């Protein structure tokens, strides 16, 4: 097999296994309160980490840039108006405008 095909097959297998693990091991039954209590908080933890690594970092270094300002502007609009659509339209627009300067 070529390197390309090996990498594609390998990536497909590990991705499948990682995505299947939680649902196969834990699905389809009632779980104790302590577990629910942690699960409820997984979404805010993961969402905040995704925002931080995408808007405040570039690869393996901390980077504040036009995208940081764009995301901040979008976040402000979402917070004031509650509109997700306005947020995702404004953020790239502000970022692109700052980069065009």
């Amino acid at each position, binding site marked *: 097999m070529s390197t390309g095909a090996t990498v594609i097959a390998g990536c497909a297998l590990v991705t499948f296994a990682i995505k299947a693990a939680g*649902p196969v091991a834990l699905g389809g039954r*009632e779980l104790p309160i302590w577990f629910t209590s942690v699960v409820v908080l997984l979404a805010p933890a993961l969402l905040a980490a995704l925002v931080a690594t995408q808007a405040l970092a570039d690869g393996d270094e901390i980077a504040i840039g036009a995208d940081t300002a*764009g995301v901040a502007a979008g976040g402000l609009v979402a917070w004031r108006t509650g509109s997700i659509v306005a*947020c*995702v339209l404004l953020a790239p627009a502000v970022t*692109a405008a700052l980069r065009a300067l």
Partner: protein
Amino acid sequence: MAQDAGLSKLETIVMSAIVYAGSAQFSAIAILAQGGGAGAAIAAAALMNSRFLPMGVALAPSLRGGPLKRGLQGQAVVDASWALAARPDGSFDLRLLFGSSAAQYVTWVSGTAIGALWGGALGDPKELGLDALFPAFFVALLLNEARSGRARGVAALGALIALLLVPVAPAGVPVLVASFAALVGLTRRAREAVLESQEAEGEAR
């Protein structure tokens, strides 16, 4: 980008169709482009995808059916659809999850095909500010999700953990480790809050 790493146009499209995890595909290809081997590329993809482990754990109680069916349903998890389907009470809107994942799958595979076949003709996505789109979407969802003081504290802690790890850990690991911020839920007061909200829900029915 994939072709700089030695993948053919067909291989690039096939990769999007069967791996369907953008950031993992990018990290694997970045390793190949830097001259790394197949093993290193697959390991990078696995680390990048490790955040789907806690997402799958969170989703699990909302799934029904046997292990095989649940494992297949788990394949629908990608960042945006998982975040969109998450309800503040910890359960998931499965129709929203599958619907938004299906729509994104079509967009992703066709987008890859367009990029692979005619990539040179398109502009730089960064010039259009498109790299700000997903984080902005996640900010909006986070504002909606983090209504309690505890959830906001966990969000701040998760962001802090991720940022501290960015310079020192391989890509993907910062987000995975940030999920440990949710262990705040093990405190007695957090468990009592969940019990109270479940009881309130029970009375409302």
